[in-house]
């Protein structure tokens, strides 16, 4: 069949020649796919080569240069309490039984120009949207100076300056921070100046003037600032030392002074709050590992004068964290309110006064000495375990025993917390 077909192809040629031609043609046809395959391979190699060569020039995935770094941090919890929770302001802490959106934080970070950078953090909750922090920071002031302008956490202590849901080992605040500064931490609108002292070791001096609209310790009955005394002043000295590559010690002292909202409009001169704070932290990193052990302690004392008298109250917390590796972390925390034991001086009588002249649409109960300003004795012990499936997710279990000796009641609390981070990851504060 084949022969006849070939013979009919070239009638003038000898049969031998014809057959050898056919043989070559058949071999050629058989070899074609192989040749094509090696050509394909060569093309692939070339493509790989080109990809590498051009990688530096063509950057298809490079994020758009003019958009700020955007991140979203979602924090949810489910809480259980054995009894009524001890007083807390409904903000980002677990405060009722059942599931809760603690916060959905939107972060935007970028250089504004060569001189300043901006950081904006919006907190979205089921109640609405709030400006958590929004500030610009100078990058290039001379003489070790740095300015911050906008709304930011006051430079008081260590915990208060942190977005605690993200970077601390517990789902809630230390008692002393909750009692002194409320659910939204001590923050305000204003200006901060910090100075890196020209010393052979790290030491930073910070001063800030902020609007006094804290929910607990600081506030003015009117939004109008009539004189500097209506503002909240904060000062801090912080230092840090390395003992080798692995051990770091940090210590700081802070002071805040501002008007409180007791007593109504004309009283801000006499009704003032002062808070003194001392903090200490030590962190030991394991050799060649993500693991570390950290201890952090803060002590604060607050003196508030209110019409007719005043209150003195102190409190402290101490926590110990062990990060075992990239995935697991465990922590224990002790809280103590009443260090020194809270006491009243004079005859603070406010709170009974019924003052209808005060603005109603305000976060403060103006004129009243709220339960957060009154001295209290309270003790709490908490433990937590956190698991990080990756850098961008965290699952946390926490249990507290919260005890009010005066009321003779203790509350067991248990939280399950879940957090995710999407978008660009911001650098962590140490």
């Amino acid at each position, binding site marked *: 069949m084949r022969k006849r077909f070939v013979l009919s192809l070239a009638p003038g040629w000898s049969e031998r020649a014809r057959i050898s031609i056919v043989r070559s043609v058949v071999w050629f046809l058989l070899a074609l796919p192989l040749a094509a395959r090696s050509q394909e391979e060569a093309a692939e190699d070339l493509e790989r080569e080109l990809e590498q060569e051009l*990688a530096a020039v063509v950057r298809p995935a490079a994020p758009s240069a003019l958009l700020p770094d955007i991140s979203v941090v979602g924090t949810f919890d489910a809480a259980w309490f054995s009894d009524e929770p001890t007083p807390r302001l409904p903000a980002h802490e677990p405060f009722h039984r059942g599931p809760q959106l603690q916060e959905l934080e939107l972060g935007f970070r970028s250089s504004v120009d060569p001189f300043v950078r901006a950081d904006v953090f919006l907190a979205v909750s089921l109640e609405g949207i709030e400006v958590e922090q929004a500030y610009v920071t100078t990058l*290039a002031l001379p003489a070790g100076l740095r300015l911050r302008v906008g709304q930011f956490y006051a430079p008081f202590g260590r915990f208060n300056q942190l977005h605690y849901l993200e970077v601390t080992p517990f789902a809630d605040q230390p008692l002393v921070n909750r009692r002194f500064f409320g659910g939204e931490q001590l923050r305000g609108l204003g200006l901060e100046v910090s100075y*890196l002292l*020209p010393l052979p070791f790290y030491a930073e001096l910070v001063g800030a003037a902020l609007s006094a609209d804290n929910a607990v310790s600081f506030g003015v009955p009117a939004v109008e600032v009539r004189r500097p005394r209506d503002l909240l002043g904060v000062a801090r000295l912080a230092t840090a030392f390395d003992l080798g590559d692995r051990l770091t010690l940090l210590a700081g002292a802070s002071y805040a002074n501002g008007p409180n909202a007791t007593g109504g409009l004309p009283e801000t001169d006499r009704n003032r709050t002062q808070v003194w704070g001392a903090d200490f932290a030590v962190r030991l990193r394991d050799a060649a590992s993500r693991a570390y052990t950290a201890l952090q302690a803060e002590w604060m004392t607050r003196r508030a004068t209110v019409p007719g008298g005043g209150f003195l109250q102190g409190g402290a917390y101490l926590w110990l964290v062990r990060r075992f*590796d990239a995935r697991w972390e465990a922590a224990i925390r002790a809280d103590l309110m009443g260090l020194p034991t809270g006491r009243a001086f004079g005859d603070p009588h406010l709170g009974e006064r019924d003052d209808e002249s005060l603005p109603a649409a305000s976060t403060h109960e103006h004129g009243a000495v709220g339960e957060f300003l009154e001295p209290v004795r309270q003790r709490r012990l908490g433990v937590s375990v956190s698991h990080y499936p*990756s850098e961008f997710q965290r699952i946390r279990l926490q249990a507290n025993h919260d005890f009010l000796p005066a009321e003779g009641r203790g509350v067991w609390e248990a939280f399950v917390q879940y957090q995710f981070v999407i978008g660009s990851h911001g650098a962590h504060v140490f």
Partner: protein
Amino acid sequence: MRALVLLFSAFLAAPGSARAEIRVAATLPALGALAREVVGTHGTVAVLAPPDQDPHFVDGKPTLILALHRAQLLVHAGGDLEAGWLPTLLAGARNGDIQPGQPGNLDVSTLAGPVLEVPAKLDRALGDVHPRGNPHVWLDPRRARRIALGIAERVAALDPERASAYRDNAQRFAERLDRKIAEWEERMRPHRGRGFVPYHKSLVYLADWLGLAEVATVEPLPGIAPSPSHLASLIVEIRKREPRPVVIAERWHNQRIARTVAEKAGAPLVVVPGDVGATRETSDYVAFMDDLLRRLAAGFESAAP
């Protein structure tokens, strides 16, 4: 008291004596080692990251702010490698000279030639990807050479009085490196084409230089901890190959997992002791690479068919 005043004025005077020496800060020990070759005796080089820690997860300790505050030049790997800790320190440094975009800010990923593994798609479902490509460039000495020459140009621009000294230092280092590169390539030639299994994708530039083939990685995706099922399939994959690929782990990776994979797969394990300065024998870049390649060659030889 007088001692205190003296001490204080000495430090007040420190910025004034800036003329005398150029002050460089480098994020990683290897980059610091290259900068040291260039700067020589004409300046100081401060290194931020300790040599035994994963460069992705360095503690941004406030104490590091001091070195950045004083630096005239910051040398960093770039490509977002230090994104988890450097930005906070830079904002705290109060030093306009070393901010991004300034001449005092040197991103070495712009110097080291083509960047490998630039992701075509950015998605964290693919792990903790680096949007600008793989930033672990310094383990390829040809790239290290380019980095050193690039640092010299930058330092020369910042301190023109000693420009020629920096360029000479860099040139001498480059020549020394050329001889070493030839020697290293000769030593590693028998192992060309051999397979290896790194813990993290941190050896692509080394592999690119030596013609090694990355078979798989111990972690399934960058920054994701390996599951037992991933490890099982990895071990099976390694066992299929003759000669056996070498498992390579840096010291900060999970040594127990790396050891288990190597043992179960019958493959040798090579532990990279960290960065320059991690051991007494690896005090400069050349010594570090010598040590690294010795370990690597020993690994390949022990798995020879």
